[in-house]
């Protein structure tokens, strides 16, 4: 359990900072916390990938699902059709993909760069 704490803390921090940045920066501003938080938290690269992905996934999903429920899925069904997808569920998944994958990549590289500085232990 203790090992999972940095993983979740980093994910939640990435989500919160990304949210704050999204208020005045473009859609890709999650890249900054996704890179920096795993760097500061000294996460393992694989863990950092998952943590950063999770953070952005949580943030984007919560906004999207809130909008979709309020909208009765009117728009998500139309956009799904526009993208040749069969359901609103699939357009929701498609929508978060750019954020989730890119965030993971930045998390991975942030953690990896930190690792490349540290001396090999033992």
């Amino acid at each position: 359990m203790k090992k999972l704490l940095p993983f979740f803390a980093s994910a939640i921090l990435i989500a919160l900072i990304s949210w704050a940045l999204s208020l005045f920066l473009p859609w890709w501003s999650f890249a900054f916390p996704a890179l920096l938080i795993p760097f500061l938290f000294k996460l393992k690269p694989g863990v950092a990938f998952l943590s950063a992905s999770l953070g952005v996934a949580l943030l984007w999903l919560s906004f999207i699902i809130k909008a979709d429920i309020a909208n009765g899925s009117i728009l998500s069904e139309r956009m799904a059709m526009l993208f040749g997808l069969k359901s609103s569920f699939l357009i929701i998944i498609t929508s978060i993909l750019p954020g989730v994958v890119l965030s993971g990549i930045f998390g991975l590289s942030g953690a990896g760069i930190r690792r490349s500085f540290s001396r090999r232990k033992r």
Partner: protein
Amino acid sequence: MNRIKFFSYFLIMIVGCIGIWQLDVPHDSIPALGRLLNPFTGFWQNAEPLDYKPERELNLTGLEASVEVLYDDRLVPHIYAQNEHDLYFAQGYITASHRLWQMEIQTHSAAGRLSEILGPNLLSRDRMTRRLGLPYAAEVAVDSYDPDSPAFLAMQAYTAGVNEYINSLEPKDYPLEYKILGYAPEEWTPLKTALLLKYMANMLTGNEKDHEITNFVGTFSDTYLEAFYGYHWDIVDPIIPSSINWNTDSIPKMDSSMLGLSTVPGDPMAKPDPLLGSNNWAVAPNKTANGNPILANDPHLRMTLPAIWYEIHLNAPGINTYGVSLPGTPCVIIGFNDDIAWGVTNSSRDVKDWYKINFEDSERQRYMFEGEWADTEFRLEEIKIKGMESYTDTVAYTYWGPVVSHPNLDFSGPKDHALRWTAHDPSNELMTFLKLNKASNHETYIDAISHFECPGQNFVFASKDGDIAIKQQGKFPILRPGQGRQLQIGSTKTNEWQGYIPFDENPHVLNPLRGFVSSANQQPTDSTYPYFYGGIYEHYRNRRINSQLEQMDNITMDDMQRLQLDNFNWQASDALPLMLAHLSPEMEADEIKMLKDWNYMNEADLQAPALYEMWWDSLHYNIWDEFRAYEVALAYPSIFNTTEMLRRDMENPFMDIISTVEQEDFVDVNSLSFRQALDAFREEGAPDWGTAKATFIEHIGRIPAFGHYNVHCSGNKHIVNATGRTAGPSWRMVVELGETVVPRGIYPGGQSGNPGSPYFDNFIEDWVDGQYYELLFGSEEELSNKAMASQTLKPE
């Protein structure tokens, strides 16, 4: 430090950056996915909550006083302003807040600027728009406006309102289509309003076949000219009843023998959808149950999402009007106020003539005119193209107007043919609506419509005083008999129009004895009207409407709605008995009995009309096979002319099927057509009419996911309920003018242009069912407890 590790992770970060960049820019037809899909600025921002309510209070720069807006439960805005400037400012602001993308794309279309947004595929369309001189016409109109005229002031206030809305937008607020296509709204201008009016003029003045008829005469001689393209005056049921006497004093005697007709063939212009048309009528108090006049109107236009119309109620001191507006134009276009109601149908008059130009050489610097070389003027049309370099087209302007095409171009269109078109002349149609919105009686209605020049319209009118009237108004040329039907020689002024018919000699009738006035795109007059005119006219809807109104008494609003929804197929009642009687004896099928028993009603759930329409289409196609045997562009005789040919003279050489050795007659071509139609009908599983017709209501940007397809509708072209596959009753309105005004109406669409809004298409189902909404018309106090939301626009 582990350098290899560092560089490999650094590289991964670069990959991430490239990923961002790639998703931040569009790729060919694929939009910038990162921008489009993210929840903060992408399409999810356009997902409007189901319980959406307009903002309670807005501070707007440019208002003089505060404006109250009530929205009813269909999102129709009821605007209460303290002066007219604020009224039109608010109309611009609110219309833009619901329909901005539509307003801009329609005016881009009229300006020949679609390539700029949609790419090189639209280039030839943009070139044609510019060669037709649409942007030129709009510029001429704007230049001619008197800056103090009320119409210009209204346009300026409206423009300021639209721009106030545009300026309030962040990219995340842009209408969805901007996000999908990846561009941003630009500033609105009065020129755009003028472009929109020219866009309507272009849609509604394509009633000519000059090139096709020229080619027909050149190919087949003029023996059948009257039968195939003539009017058959004996059965014309005109707008103005035949009993009217015309004042003929002012009409010059004209000689058509001087007309120089050109025989040079040319390809024709793209024609408007033949489904376009309209019905309107008004009944006098002595024919109605409540003793009040009732007015009805349903314009048949291309059905789109967002719809061409936007419903609105405008109120300020001196004005209280309700109806449908065109997004992009101030005022109500079709509607009513406290005293009168009005509606329009297209006049279908021919106001486009073509002249063959003889240029000196391929440089086209000079052309022969009145025995001398006259200088050509050139207008450079720079067309911006998305993702490519601009294309510059040089359009030659002559005495007559623009030369729409010339041989140097790989362009299918007329060759060196100049266009004389009334839409190119300065005019101020907006004045008509500004005044109609405030008109209170017959006199003020006539004054209002006297400003209307192009496209010619039949303005129907009814007033609380009990008057009913109809007038065909527009700027119509005085022609030599027969002039304008074919391509003319452009080197002499002899072929010029002989002036314009004075407006008070345009066909008009007030309170006719028969107790009703009506129009359905038919001839305005019988053949005794002293002026010659051309055009392409309706012959079935008008006869059905008039014969029904003739019989009716104690008329109620429900009766008028039923008439708008009437599905009687008069053409089938003329043609089908002949077709059934001329089937060869070996044709046997159970379906024949179904057709014999059919009551000629094109109801959506009947199979007989589906088979009949297939048979008719196949027959029409097979009879006119001769027309497909020539390289030149020809126009098939219309459904009406074909039907009359069958009724009057079915023994003619065109019955032959030219691809066979034998000589066929009507029985042969009719039986063959029946066999083909029956096979197709059975193959499609014997569909009912609604399924076979498969009406669709398309998104303006042709995005299939935003349209409605296979809408199950009754009616068809040439039927009072003129719901065809792509066009139909784009606004059905019935208004009773009693002590209080009782208005009803509906259009196939919704008030919001946002595909993510519950108000995007919420009227369609009721429209298909033939339902009408009770329109809320009253003072702010009367409506305030019925409103879904109220909003205050405050001057900043």
